C-alpha cells in the first residue's frame, strides 16, 4: 500500500517539480483560452452556414454538414498529428504560416490552436444548432413576415434566443476542450502533461503527472457543478415559461 502511495503521491517529487508543472498548466490554460474564443466563433459560423435557406445554397449546407460530421468522427489526436506533421512541409505556404511563431508562442502552440479550433468548432456548431432549432418556428415566421431578411432574423431574433438555451451543453464542451488541450503534448508543446511525463521518465514516479491531473480537477470539478446549476436553472425557466403560457 505504501508503495502505491509513494508511486502516485510522492510529496517530495511533487514539491520539487511543482513550479514546472504549474508553468505547464498555465500553458494549457493559455492554449485553452485562445481556442475557446476561436472555436465559439467558428462553431457559430458553421451553425449559421448550416441553416442557410433556399435551394441554391444546398452545396454550402452540404459541405458544412460534411465538415462537422468528419471532424467529429476523427480522433482529435490524429488531427493534431496531421496538422503538426504536415503543415511545416507544405512549401507553397509562406514560412510564417508553415512555422508560425506569432505573439512569441512556439509553432506547436499554433498547431494546437488550429487543430483544437477546427475540431471543437464542429462540436460547438452542433450545440449551437440544438439551440437554434429550439427557437420556435413562429419566431422566424414573425420576423420574416415583418420583412426581415433571413440574416436579420438570425441575428436579431434567433441567435440571441438560441444562446440562452445552451449554456449547459456549451460549458460541457468547454470543459472537454480544457482537458483535450493536453493532447498537444504529443507535438512537444511544453504543457503540464509533457512536464509530468518528463519527470516520470527521469524518476519512474507518477506524482508529477498526478499533480497535473489535480490542477485540472481544481478547475473542471467546479465547472461540472456550474453545469448542473445551469441545467437546473434552465429547467426552472422552462417550467415558469409553461406556467405563463397557461396563465
Amino acid at each position, binding site marked *: 500500500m505504501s508503495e502505491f502511495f509513494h508511486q502516485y503521491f510522492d510529496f517530495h517529487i511533487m514539491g520539487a517539480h511543482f513550479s514546472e508543472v504549474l508553468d505547464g498548466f498555465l500553458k494549457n490554460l493559455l492554449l485553452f483560452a485562445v481556442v475557446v474564443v476561436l472555436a465559439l466563433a467558428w462553431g457559430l459560423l458553421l451553425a449559421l452556414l448550416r441553416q442557410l435557406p433556399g435551394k441554391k445554397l444546398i452545396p454550402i449546407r452540404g459541405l458544412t454538414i460534411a465538415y462537422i460530421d468528419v471532424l467529429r468522427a476523427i480522433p482529435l489526436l490524429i488531427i493534431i498529428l496531421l496538422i503538426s506533421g504536415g503543415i511545416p512541409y507544405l512549401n507553397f505556404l509562406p514560412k510564417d504560416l508553415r512555422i508560425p511563431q506569432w505573439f512569441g508562442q512556439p509553432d506547436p502552440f499554433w498547431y494546437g490552436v488550429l487543430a483544437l479550433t477546427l475540431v471543437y468548432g464542429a462540436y460547438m456548431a452542433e450545440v449551437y444548432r440544438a439551440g437554434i432549432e429550439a427557437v420556435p418556428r413562429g419566431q422566424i415566421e414573425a*420576423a420574416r*413576415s*415583418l420583412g426581415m431578411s433571413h440574416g436579420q432574423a438570425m441575428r436579431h431574433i434567433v441567435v440571441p434566443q438560441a444562446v440562452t438555451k445552451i449554456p449547459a451543453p456549451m460549458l460541457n464542451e468547454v470543459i472537454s476542450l480544457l482537458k483535450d488541450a493536453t493532447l498537444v503534448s504529443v507535438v512537444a508543446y511544453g504543457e503540464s502533461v509533457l512536464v509530468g511525463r518528463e519527470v516520470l521518465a527521469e524518476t519512474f514516479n507518477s506524482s508529477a503527472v498526478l499533480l497535473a491531473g489535480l490542477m485540472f480537477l481544481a478547475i473542471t470539478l467546479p465547472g461540472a457543478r456550474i453545469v448542473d446549476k445551469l441545467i437546473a436553472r434552465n429547467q426552472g425557466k422552462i417550467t415558469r415559461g409553461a406556467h405563463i403560457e397557461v396563465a
Partner: protein
Amino acid sequence: MAEAMVRLEEIHKRFGDLEVLKGVNLDVAKGEVVCILGPSGSGKSTLLRCVNLLEPPERGEIFLEGHDICKGPGSGTGEASWELDFVRQRVGMVFQQFNLFPHKTVLENVTLAPRQVLGKSRAEAESKAKALLERVGLGDKFGQYPERLSGGQQQRVAIARALAMEPHVMLFDEVTSALDPELVKEVLDTMRELAGEGMTMLVVTHEMGFAREVGDQVVFMDGGVIVEQGRPADVLDNPREERTKKFLGRVLER
C-alpha cells in the same frame, strides 16, 4: 369594380402527398374585411400564409395591388426574390401564438423591423411605436417584456408591431384562439377599430359574431376549396351548401 387589393387565382398548395389548397380564387377589395371560416384542416390558414408567401403556392397567381407576386423563376421557393420584399413590406400578419420576441421589450418588438428593414432612426421608430401602442391601449407597457403581459395584451402588441410597418393589408390567423375567453374582446375591439379605419383585412377566425358584425365578406372553406362565399348575413344565416350548414350547425350549438 376597382382593381382588387388582393386577388388569388387558382391557388394550389400541397405538403408532400397532402393537397391542402385545390384551386382557390378570391378577390379582396381595398378596405374590405374578409372573414375566412372553416373546419380545421380546411386550408384556411395555409391560404392566409400564401398571401404573404410564408407558404409560397405551387400553382396559381397572387396579385397584390395589381402586381403578380408569384411570377418568375423564384416562385415556388419563395426565397430571395424581389417579390418577397414587396409583399412583406405591404402585408402585415398576426399569429395565433402571438410570436412576440421574448428577449425584446414591448417597444423594441414594435421598433425592430422599422429600424432594420425600413432604416428608420431610433427616434422616429420609437415615436411611431409609442403612438401605435397607445392606440391599442398599451401606453404604459413600453419597457415590459412580453412574458409579463397577458395573452390579450401580447396579441395587441403583435398587432401594433405589424402596423408599425405601415402595411396595406393585414392578415389575422386565428388570433383569438389561444386566448382565455375574457381576453378575446379586447383583441377583437382592436381589430374592429382597425377595420373602421379602412384597413384591408383577411381574418381567419372562429368568432362568428365578429364575422357577422365586421366582415364585408364571409368565405367558408372546406377540403382545400372555397365552398361558399358572400355577405355575412347570407352565408351565416342562409347557407346554401350542405357542408356550410353542417359546419355552422356544429359551431353554433357549442
